Structures are given as structure tokens and as C-alpha cells.
């Protein structure tokens, strides 16, 4: 087989950066991460590459290969024309640390602003019941490995400056997994509209195109959330119906800041939270999973408002209490 010609980004913040050429001998089944390891082993031992499982499940090795956000462990060299150079560069939406490694801690700060899974207070965990059909949607979202390729490719985060924060597709998906959960009690629609900036998403589906878990992020997650926000804020008939029924609130949910820290402030101490840690709170009862205020600024204390998430959830609670069979675990996955 011919050699692959890789052009690998090398550089640190504050120093001159460049694309360095490497010729890598290709073996059958080789992926881009293998080539980077070969470069580390034979040509550039100081090349910084973040990786872990090499099985497309940890989400660590995200980079931009020929300009497209990809997992390098899942991107085969045989998919490219080896006569042409293959460029490998870091995820461009995030601050550079070194070479192919970027600082994605912003994502964990955003994650902490989401009110976690909140089951009914008066329903012991032993009595949680639901049917498979109720959590099929949620389980799709729980496939997320938090590689942040969707955040990287999202043009709102990548190219735009916005007046308010935009949480990005990964966290819209997480909110969707909570909002669509059959026994979750919190209404996060105001959070989505005001803090999460869901209006900034113009559904161009790049997040769906790059997702290595093939989650239909836009069709199954973001658009249903946009419709739910429209229910609460942009539908005059539903507004009138709520007025008639005396339900003024749209479910205030939480009022949480997204990254109140100023530019240049050191990352919050908890920024080292791993994706696994961050999402594990979903299956814990709300009393033990209070979201932490992100950043170092004068963070407002998280305010959880018991909401009117419509009678269907009351029905769901009743159903959960009386259903004889079903899952007993806390998470939907």
C-alpha cells in the first residue's frame, strides 16, 4: 500500500503554528488515530493527541480530518484518496491547548447549568415504572458519548458571536432526554429559550451529520424542543387555553446563567469533571444532584421552581405507581 501523507497541525497558544507533513506507512484497516500513533512513535514523540478507548465510545479523539469534525479512531485511511494529503487539525470551536488537543471544559460548565433528572418527590425509586415505548426517545439521546463534534461543527458556536449564550446541540439533546422523560417533573422550556438560546439554532443539521452515534439530533431532539418552546411562548391558542384553565405559568423551570465568568478568568475548579461524572447525575434524585453554578463570577443561586408541567405528568406519576412491571433503574438507558 502507498504511504499516507498527513498534514498535522502543530502549535501552542502564543507560539507560531504550522501544518507538518508526515508520510505514514499504511496497513489494512488503519484509522487516522493509528497514523497519529505511528507519528508519535517514529517521528514526533511530543505530538499531543487526546485519545482513550480507540473504539469510538469514549469520545476523546475528536479532531477535524480534511476539515470535517470526526473521531480519528473511526476514520479509516482507506476512505481517502491516498495520493492527496490528509489534514488533521484540532476541533476549531474550542481553545487550543497543544497540537490536536483542545480545552472542552466549557461544555462541562454548560452541562452543570441544566437541572438534572427530577423524579416526583413523593415517589420512592423502588416504585418508578414506565414502559419501553415511553423511553425509546430518551434512550436514543443517551447514546451520546460527549465527543463534542456536534458542538465543534455547530456554526453558532464556531462562527458567530451572540448576545446571549447558546448551549449547543449536545446539551439541547441532554435537555431533550430530560424533558421527554416520563416521570421527570421539571419544565425547562424557559431555560431553553432564555438561558440555552434555542432560538439561535437554525436547524441546519450539521450536528446530525457529524454525530458518530448517529443520533438524529435535529429531527428527534432540537426540533421537538423548539416545538415545546413554541407551545409555551409562541402559540396564542395555547396561551388562551392556559388562561382559561388558570394556568398562567409556562413552567418557569430554572433560571441559570451560562458561563458568567468573564473572558480570561481561570476555569472553575470543577471543570475537570468528566463527561461520565456530569451525566451520572441524571439518574440521581434531584435532592442529591443540585446543579452547581458555573464560573467564578457572582453566580446566582440555582432556583428550582416546582412547575406545572401539565396534567399528563401527574397521570404519568400515577401510572408509574400502579404499573406492575417495568424497569427499576433510575436512568432511561
Amino acid at each position, binding site marked *: 500500500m502507498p504511504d499516507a501523507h498527513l498534514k498535522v497541525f502543530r502549535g501552542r497558544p502564543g507560539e507560531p503554528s504550522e501544518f507538518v507533513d508526515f508520510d505514514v506507512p499504511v496497513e489494512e484497516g488503519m484509522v487516522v488515530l493509528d497514523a497519529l500513533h505511528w507519528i508519535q512513535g517514529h517521528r514526533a514523540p511530543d505530538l499531543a493527541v487526546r485519545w482513550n478507548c480507540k473504539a469510538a465510545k469514549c469520545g476523546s479523539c475528536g479532531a477535524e480530518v480534511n476539515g470535517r469534525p470526526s473521531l480519528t479512531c473511526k476514520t479509516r485511511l482507506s476512505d481517502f484518496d491516498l495520493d492527496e494529503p490528509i489534514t488533521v487539525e484540532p476541533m476549531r*470551536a474550542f481553545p487550543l491547548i497543544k497540537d490536536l488537543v483542545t480545552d472542552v471544559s466549557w461544555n462541562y460548565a454548560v452541562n452543570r447549568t441544566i437541572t438534572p433528572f427530577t423524579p416526583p418527590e413523593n415517589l420512592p425509586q423502588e416504585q418508578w415504572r414506565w414502559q419501553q415505548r415511553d423511553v425509546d426517545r430518551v434512550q436514543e439521546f443517551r447514546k451520546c458519548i460527549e465527543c463534542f463534534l456536534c458542538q465543534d461543527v455547530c456554526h453558532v458556536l464556531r462562527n458567530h458571536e451572540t448576545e*446571549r449564550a447558546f448551549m449547543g446541540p449536545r446539551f439541547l439533546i441532554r435537555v431533550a432526554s430530560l424533558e421527554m422523560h416520563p416521570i421527570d417533573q421539571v419544565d425547562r422550556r424557559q431555560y431553553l429559550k432564555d438561558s440555552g438560546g434555542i432560538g439561535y439554532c437554525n436547524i441546519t443539521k450539521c450536528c446530525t451529520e457529524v454525530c458518530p452515534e448517529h443520533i438524529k439530533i435535529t429531527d428527534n431532539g432540537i426540533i421537538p424542543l423548539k416545538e415545546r418552546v*413554541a407551545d409555551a411562548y409562541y402559540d396564542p391558542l395555547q396561551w388562551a387555553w392556559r388562561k382559561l384553565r388558570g394556568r398562567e405559568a409556562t413552567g418557569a423551570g430554572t433560571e441559570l446563567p451560562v458561563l458568567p465568568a468573564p473572558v480570561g478568568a481561570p476555569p472553575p475548579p470543577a471543570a475537570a469533571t468528566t463527561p461520565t461524572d456530569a451525566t451520572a447525575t441524571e439518574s440521581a434524585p434531584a435532592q442529591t444532584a443540585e446543579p452547581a453554578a458555573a464560573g467564578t463570577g457572582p453566580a446566582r443561586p440555582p432556583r428550582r421552581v416546582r412547575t406545572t408541567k401539565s396534567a399528563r405528568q401527574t397521570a404519568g406519576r400515577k401510572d408509574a405507581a400502579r404499573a406492575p412491571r417495568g424497569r427499576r433503574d433510575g436512568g432511561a438507558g
Partner: protein
Amino acid sequence: MTSIAPPAAQLDRPASPARPPASPIKPTGTARQGLFATRRPDAWWIEPTIVAIGFGAFILYSLFSSLVWEPVFHVPYEAQGYLSPFFSPLIKPDWLPWWFSPAILILWIPLGFRTTCYYYRKAYYRAYFVDPPACAVGEPTIHSRYRLEAAFPFILQNIHRYFLYLAFIPLFFLWLDAFLALRQEGVWRIGVIGALMFLNVALLTGYSLSCHSFRHVIGGKMDCFSCSRGALLRYRAWERATWLNIHHLRWAWASLISVAVTDLLIRLLAIGVIGDPALRF
């Protein structure tokens, strides 16, 4: 987390377009800025170009056909019992001036429905607004002040569901037209254009029922599908709407093309360019 952001000049960026100032509400990345800036070597521009040409052709044709063809060039929109889908239901009171096309009274409904449709939004944001032109491809710097669907006028995209409700009105009349066209002057007929009218309205129905808003209204807004018998019924409907929704793009394009082709054939029939082979009994 932003203190290690590299100076703009030291990373691989074009020199000219100024990068927007760093913000505390997003990570400070190093993406190349500027129109079409990308390292993608593939032909990413083909899809938005095809979409732009396809939409542009349809928009020009539909405007010409619905507003100009009959008043100016006297090409009827009805022929041998077939009515152009742009004009259904036909509302034509006597007091309408000659230059006022009755299509105007109807066309705003499907136009609004398609303009606010989630698929079309993706397509025209990419093709016409270059926002973005393709994934991981740079945008014009004018987009730096970005609000889009969080502010007027694009916040009005949220009324898509109302256009959906209204879209069922012309859809009903299109089905009616297709059935009424089966009988002309006391004779039953199954003609090529009649069959095309059925195909057209079937595709329009598929497009409407595969709509994301319909999927939401019919059941997607529920959190619990098993909580009552009614919820279970809505779940079944949501499942079917989801099955249709997977192919929403195809429904959108197929119905767009079928509307234009049906209209064109009826016009050509009206001026005698083509005939209408039909089984009559």
C-alpha cells in the same frame, strides 16, 4: 478557559476578515473565518448550489404561473375539467380586477407553510443565507451579529404549526378537485393528468403529514405514551408520523416538483400543446 486562546495572527486563519471579539458566553476557538473558509477538499458546494437553483426555478415558475400567465398571456389555469393546483380552491368573485390573480388568495398558505417548514429552513439558510453554506465552512463576516430565530423576523418561524393547520384547507380542495376531474360532461374518465393530480395531492398529503409540527401536535409533545388509552392512541399516530417524517426531505421535493409539473401540463393542455390520453366509460 479562554486565557490560552492564541493570538489571531498566529494560527491558520486568513489575514483579512477580523475575528469578532471574544465573548464570555462561548469558547474562544480558532476556526477559520471568512466566506467559504474551510479545509474540506470535497465538493461541499454542490448540494447548496443544486438547492439554490431548484428553489429558484420553482419560485420563478410559480410566480409566473400564478400571477402572470393567465392575466397577461391569457393561458387558462383550467382545462377540460382540470384545475391548476396553484388556484385550488378557486375563489374568483366578479369584482376582482382582471389583473388580480385568484391564486393570490390561496397561495400564501402553502407558501407560508413551506417557508416556515423545518426542512426548507435548513435548505434556504444554507443555500441563500450561507448560514452556513455547508458544515464546517466559513460564513460572511456580516453574520457576526447573529440572532436569527431568536429575534424578529425569523422568530416568526415559530408559527409554522398555524400554517400547517391552514394547509389542510387547500389540501382538502385538491383531493376534491382530483375526484371531480374523474367525471367530465357526464362521462367517467381516467386520464394521465387526472392520475397526476392524484399523485400530486398524495405527495402533498405525505408532505403535510410528515411535518415536524404535525408530529409534535399529534403526540410528540407528550412525555408519557402509556399513561392512558388516549395517550396510547396518540403514540400510534406519532409513530406513523415519525415514519413519514424520516423522509420529510423527499416529501418536500417530490411534492414541490409534482405541483409544478401538474400545473405545467394543465397549461399545455389548455393551449393545445399536449392532449390528455384517457380511458373513458
